[in-house]
């Protein structure tokens, strides 16, 4: 939905390495979000952006950073990946703060 792509779709990495996930949208939505999905927890917000270079933390932001240098791209970086960051990561976008969020296809990350 909303022309959202995520890359890579699957990644295996080792503990201690940096990892960057990319979310790209073609809908010119102002708001972008990163969630993680884990068994027994549903989806939880990591970080979100409300405009270019405007970002804020979500409820599980420790160990993650984000950047948004242009409207269409929102990057999630794991500075030093840990096994607890093994998860499925979803990007979502919304036209406005109160607008419905639409999700990308997800990225499955395995940290060994």
């Amino acid at each position: 939905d909303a022309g959202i792509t995520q890359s890579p779709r699957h990644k295996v990495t080792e503990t201690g390495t940096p990892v960057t996930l990319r979310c790209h949208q073609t809908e010119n939505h102002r708001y972008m979000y990163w969630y993680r999905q884990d068994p027994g927890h549903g989806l939880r917000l990591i970080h979100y952006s409300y405009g270019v270079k405007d970002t804020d933390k979500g409820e599980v932001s420790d160990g993650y950073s984000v950047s948004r240098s242009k409207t269409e791209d929102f990057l999630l970086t794991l500075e030093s990946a840990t096994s607890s960051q093994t998860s499925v990561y979803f990007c979502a976008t919304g036209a406005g703060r109160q607008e419905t969020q639409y999700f990308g296809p997800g990225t499955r990350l395995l940290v060994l």
Partner: protein
Amino acid sequence: AQTVTQSQPEMSVQEAETVTLSCTYDTSESDYYLFWYKQPPSRQMILVIRQEAYKQQNATENRFSVNFQKAAKSFSLKISDSQLGDAAMYFCAYRSAMGQGGSEKLVFGKGTKLTVNP
């Protein structure tokens, strides 16, 4: 903090029958949005239906409808004429409409796995 509870980890329904998935939430706010998302085996999160708390009328989308009981803080999803393609995880989600910082996030329940039997 708001919480969303889906008390049914798994449900099953016969094809063409009707099934209702339960969701309750806890909030002290008066203005908010509620959503049902569907996640098939492909893992794509797909919006099923959206309800604004200020609207008394229950939202409907084709075979999907909700029973929104604001006083009881209940938001159930009814799927009529169930189809094999309805098999998925269904997530209930809450979002504040209070306009404060951090209110943009969706708060999700843990999901209900729906199986549709032919």
